[in-house]
Structure formats: C-alpha cells, structure tokens
C-alpha cells in the first residue's frame, strides 16, 4: 500500500474492566492466545497488508508495551525510511498536553502525518483480535470515492445495543449513527476501524479541536460531524473473526475459542502470520506420564501433569499429578503436584501450591488468579 496509507494505531487504552490483567500494562499489551499480546494482531495485519508507516499512540503505562514493540523488528517495522513510530504526548511552548480523546491523539500528531503526506489515514485500535487485509478496505474506499469508510460487522441482535450501530442506505452509504442504542435498527456494528481521506480528516480534526463541546472522540464527535456536513461515508462489511476483549470472561472465552475446531481465527495460516516478539526459548518438553488433551502449549514449557482444553503460555512447569482444565495459564507459572485448576486465567509468575483447588468443572464461573488473590466472575 506504499506511502499512500499511514496507519494510526490507538494503543493508549487502560482496559480497567480486565482488572489485574491491566494493573501494570495498557490493554493492548495483555497476553493472548498462548504467545501473543493483543496489539500483535493489529500490527501483524498492518505489516501483512503492506503498510510501511504506522504511528502508535501511547499514553497509559506504556513501558511494557514499548519493551514489547522495541524497534518493531518482529513486525518488520525496523526501517530506516518510514516504519513504526511511537507517538506519546509531548510538550511545546504552551506546556504539556495529554491526549484527551481518540481524535485529539491523532490531532496532536498532525506534524507526523503532514511529513509523510499520506493520501489515506487508517485508524486502528490496539485492543482488537482479528485478521484483516486492509487492502480490501482501501480498495472498497477507493471504489466508492468515499471521504471515510468504516469497517462494520454483523453482531448478534441481543448484543447490538452494546455497540455503535451504523445505518446505511441500499448502496451502503451511511445515513445514521446510533451510539449504543437501546432499540437498534439493525445489527451492523462499527469495528472502530476507519479509512479516511487525509485531507478531509485533517480539516475535521482541526475543526474538532476548536470545538469546546467535543470530547474529541472519533465515534462521538468527528464522524457524526462529518455525517452532518454530508461527507461521503460508507460502511464496509467485514466477515470473519473479530473480538474486542472487554471483560475477564470475554478474555477467557476468546482464548478458549482457539481450541474450538470451528474457530475461524486460524493462527496456522502461513499466508497471514501473526508476529510477536521472540522470547528465544527452547522447545516444550512433554515428559513420560504426561497427558495432554486438546491444548495449546508454547515454548519453554515442561509438562509432567495433565492438561485438558487449556492454553499454556511460555516457561510453565506442570508437575506430575497436577491437573489443569479449561484454563489459560500465562507465562512463568508453576502448577505444583496435586493442584487442580478449573476455568481459570492464571496471571504471570504465579505459583499454584500443592493440592490447591481452584473452581469446579461445571460451576460456570471464571477465576482470575494471581499469586496473592483470586477474583471470581
């Protein structure tokens, strides 16, 4: 997609409903799927779509996120020309300015975009798990000669009122936005992925910045304003796996999705790899006597016990006689002999002591487990 498209990836979200999962890190840095962090999906989509320039807007506890991204080499963004740029808030003569909303974060970095002179700006979120070829969105956008194209997807009717719903005419032209409508008119939800013509976006960002009533949010302010002023806005219908992991339960569910035969987020597809920072660990070792059923295991694990329907991140020791069912275990945990763990998300560096019992197979609760505390949900 060359220099014509610059992606701006919003990665400042706190994700407070994820509780202890985000106590030290921003939501995009939360581990997912056995070896990834959530932001890996958007970053890998961008590099696989051939986007050469991507700005990452950070604000909340960026330290681990920055460590994870490094110079971007995992995603092939360690370039001399273009590549990846982390864009935190900064000061000028008028003093420091924190980002006050999604649109404001992009507004504050107009210099970055101006220098790259893009034709299109793609707004992405670092909170979502999905695989998407942004070229398809771009081609649709070009074909419609749109000012902005919003990626939308069908959600279950019963959940539609949790989303921003987009109403279109028969030619997919957007005629109305409904933000979390109690009675939605349809079930097409905005995915928070926008392809803008840069010239138009630039104009509206400047306008929005001067508007004292605005909270400087794309969904709440900038897009409705554009609609009001009759800009050409289209919806592009995405079909495929997509998840915005909001709560601990949905986090657990999305991980478990990967063990489902019918799961459509195929991580083994070599034509659309998901890249992540390499930890340089040796292969996993499965000992004599171990039992492993329908589970994903990552490098550096040492499995001597029993695993059923579980996802293990790296460097986890499962001692003989320990049993893990329907759980997600983050890196560097030890599950000691005789412990039984059900329906849990176990945080990094946790030791589950001998004969400890967490949950029951059928109890329909999710347990978030750290070394100090267990949260139920």
């Amino acid at each position, binding site marked *: 997609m060359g220099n014509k498209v610059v992606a701006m990836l919003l990665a400042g979200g706190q994700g407070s409903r994820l509780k202890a999962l985000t106590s030290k890190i921003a939501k995009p840095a939360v581990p997912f799927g*056995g*070896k990834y962090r959530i932001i890996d999906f958007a970053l890998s989509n961008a590099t696989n779509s051939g986007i050469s320039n991507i700005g990452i807007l950070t604000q909340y506890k960026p330290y681990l996120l920055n460590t994870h991204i490094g110079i971007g080499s995992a995603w092939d963004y360690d370039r001399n020309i273009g590549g990846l740029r982390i864009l935190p808030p900064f000061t000028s003569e008028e003093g420091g300015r924190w980002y006050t909303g999604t649109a404001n974060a992009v507004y504050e970095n107009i210099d970055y975009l101006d220098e790259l002179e893009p034709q299109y700006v793609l707004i992405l979120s670092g909170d979502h798990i999905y695989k998407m070829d942004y070229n398809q969105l771009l081609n649709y956008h070009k074909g419609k000669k749109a000012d902005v194209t919003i990626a939308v997807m069908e959600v279950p009717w019963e959940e539609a009122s949790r989303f921003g719903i987009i109403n279109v005419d028969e030619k997919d032209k957007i005629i109305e936005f409904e933000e979390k409508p109690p009675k939605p008119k349809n079930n097409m939800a905005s995915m928070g992925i926008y392809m803008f013509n840069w010239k138009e976006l630039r104009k509206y960002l400047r306008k929005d910045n001067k508007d004292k009533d605005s909270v400087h949010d794309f969904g709440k302010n900038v897009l409705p304003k554009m609609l009001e002023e009759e800009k050409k806005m289209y919806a592009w219908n995405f079909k495929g796996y997509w998840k915005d992991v909001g709560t601990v339960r949905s986090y657990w569910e999305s991980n478990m999705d990967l063990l489902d035969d019918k799961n459509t987020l195929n991580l083994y597809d070599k034509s659309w790899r998901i*890249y992540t920072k*390499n930890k340089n660990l*040796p292969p996993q070792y499965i000992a004599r*006597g171990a039992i492993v059923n329908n589970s994903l*295991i990552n490098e550096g694990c040492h499995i001597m016990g029993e695993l059923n329907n579980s*996802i293990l991140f790296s460097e986890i020791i499962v001692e003989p006689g320990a049993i893990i069912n329907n759980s997600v275990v983050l890196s560097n945990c030890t599950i000691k002999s005789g412990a039984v763990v059900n329906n849990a998300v176990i945080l990094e560096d946790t030791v589950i002591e001998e004969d400890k019992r967490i949950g029951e197979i059928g109890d329909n609760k999710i347990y978030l487990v750290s070394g100090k505390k267990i949260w139920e949900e």
Partner: protein
Amino acid sequence: MDRCLGIITTLERDSNFGGICKNRPSYMLPFGGRYRLIDFTISNMVNHGLRTIAVYTGEKIRSTMDHLGDGKPWDLNRRINGLFLYPPINDNHVGTHFGDIAQFYSTMEFFDRTREEYIFLSNPNIIAKLNIGDAFRFFIDTGADITLIYREQLDPDGNLINCDKIHVGEDNVFENLGVNLSTEKRFNHYIGMAFVKKDIFIKILKDSIEQGNTNYFKDAIILYKDKYKINTYEFKGHVETIRDLKSFYKANLNLLSKDISRELFFQGGAIYTKSKDEPSTLYTESSNVQNSLIANGCVIEGDVENSIVFRGVKIGKGAFIKNSVVMQKSVIEENAIVVNAVLDKQTFIGKGVNIGGSILAPYVVEKYQRIVKE
C-alpha cells in the same frame, strides 16, 4: 570479553553425514527442535560478551547466508563490529588454498582492522557451553600465548575414535596433539576451542605461509609448540561432537535427558536462532506424547515417544513416531510408523507407511523426499 574476536571454522567433512549434508555444511544441521548447530557456538560467544565474530563458511554458502544473514538474531547486525561471513576463496596469490591458514590469511585486513587483541577459536561441530569468561581469565592470568580447551573423556565404546587427543603436562602445559585411537580408557579431548593472542596468531599464519610447512592451524600449533607459551584449560561440562550421521542423531536424542538439555539450552544464556513465528503447538484429544521435545507450530494427533520434533510438523491420527528426529515442516500421515529415523526438512510420510532403522544407524529420509505406500 570485548577484547576478544570470535572465529568460527570447522574442518569436518560433509561426506560423513550422508544425504543430510548434500546442500548444507554440517554446522548448519538442524538441532534440538528449532536450532542449527552453529547457533550454539555463536550464542555462547554473544552471551559471553564477544562483539565481533567471523565465520569461515563452507563451500555451500547459500544456507549459511540465509540463516546467519546479517546476524540479527544474535544482535550482531552492527555497523561497528558484528558478524562477518567469509566464504572460501581460491583465487588469491598465496600458493595452495586448502587448509584454514590460507583462508585466515586471505582476511588479514579483518585482523588488522579490528581492535580486539585476542582471538577465541571455536569449532561449530562441537557443542560445549564453555564459560568463555572464566577460560579467558585463565588464559590472561597464566600469560599464555595460546590456551587450548579440552575435556577429559571416558570413551569405552570408541565413539570418539579419530578425535583430537591432547597431551597435557604438569601445570596444564601443552605437550602435544594427536589423534585418539581409543587405546586408552580415558583421554583428553581437544574440543576445538582455543584462545590465541592476535599478534601471535598473525605471526603463525605468516610463518606457515612463508615456510610452506603446514596448511592447518592445528598442525602449526604442534610445529611451533616450543616457540610459544601454550597451555591447556579443562572444561568439565557436557560435550557433543557431531562428526557424522550417527553422532548427529545421538546428540539430538541426548537432549531428552533433563540435565543435558538444561545445560545446553539454558546455561550461560539463551540460544538465539532465526525466528519463524510459529504459533503454539496443538495437541488434540487423540495425541499421546511421551518423553519428547516438541517445537512450536506443530499439530499432533498421533503418538510420539523419545523423539525430537521440529517446527511446523504435522503428525496424523494413529501415527507412531519413536526414537526419531523429525525436522521442520515434515508431514507424517495417519497410521504411519516411524522408528529410529532422521527425517530431514519437509519430508512427507504417507498414510500407513512403515519406516525404521536401527538406533546405531538411523533410517534417513532426505529433504523434500516423499514416501508413500504403493
């Protein structure tokens, strides 16, 4: 340790490895589920602070270039020092061109330019997690011109016949270097690692070429042993010497010992290699894996026992793999049986095929080879 150049070179013959070295030098052989042999040598150097490393490559240079490239996995893609690959040249003006001395000499500019005063030589076909820092201190403290590293070996089965045998005198003095013919129960095995003062190294190169009396650095050490202060340093850890198909196969299976894998994989720092971004490995309900090392990106539906399975391997339902080394992206279909075998990269073993060798002479399936039932 930034006072020391790392020099990697081997004299092993690829022909001893049968089909698996047809298109790669032996130091490029896959090892331990996700590595190449040379990864251990380079990583150990990097983990001990060496910043300038030169690899004198084999003739089949393409696989080396592809894997080592600019040295990025080892953070050796540096502007100042870093990784240097020297493919063999055979058109300079220095007489005969076999032997490592002519190759070292052809890169004299490299030795002149680099600021390091010492050289650490290493043979990538011998894996040993030497604490290079400790050994270097010994070399410096004893004021030696050359320090050779050896391991005392007990070799009742004669696995190490034809290995270099070092004779150590009192106070670690170097006496001579010969070949182990297994006449003694124990011998001191020179493991291809040595420290040399750079100026002495250069002097030996020039002398050897001017005198015309040797083409190999190892021979020059014997030749000049009274001229320089040469001593020895004992290494006490695990050593794998990969000289032929059998020792290659055995070295892989040895990794199933917890002590050996812990030492080789973790001691003194991680082993770096070119990353392939495979997802985690999936074990289905029908899988049964026992005492095996499994790399990422595999889908395992069958039985695996006492084996090393590399990245992206697929093992079908009812398949049975035992005492085998299965390299990257191989596919073993349903109900196939593979015992005592080495399967090279991207081999295909069809449904119900039954192959097997002996534990002393594994069955080899060459790269890209397909075996299907007639």
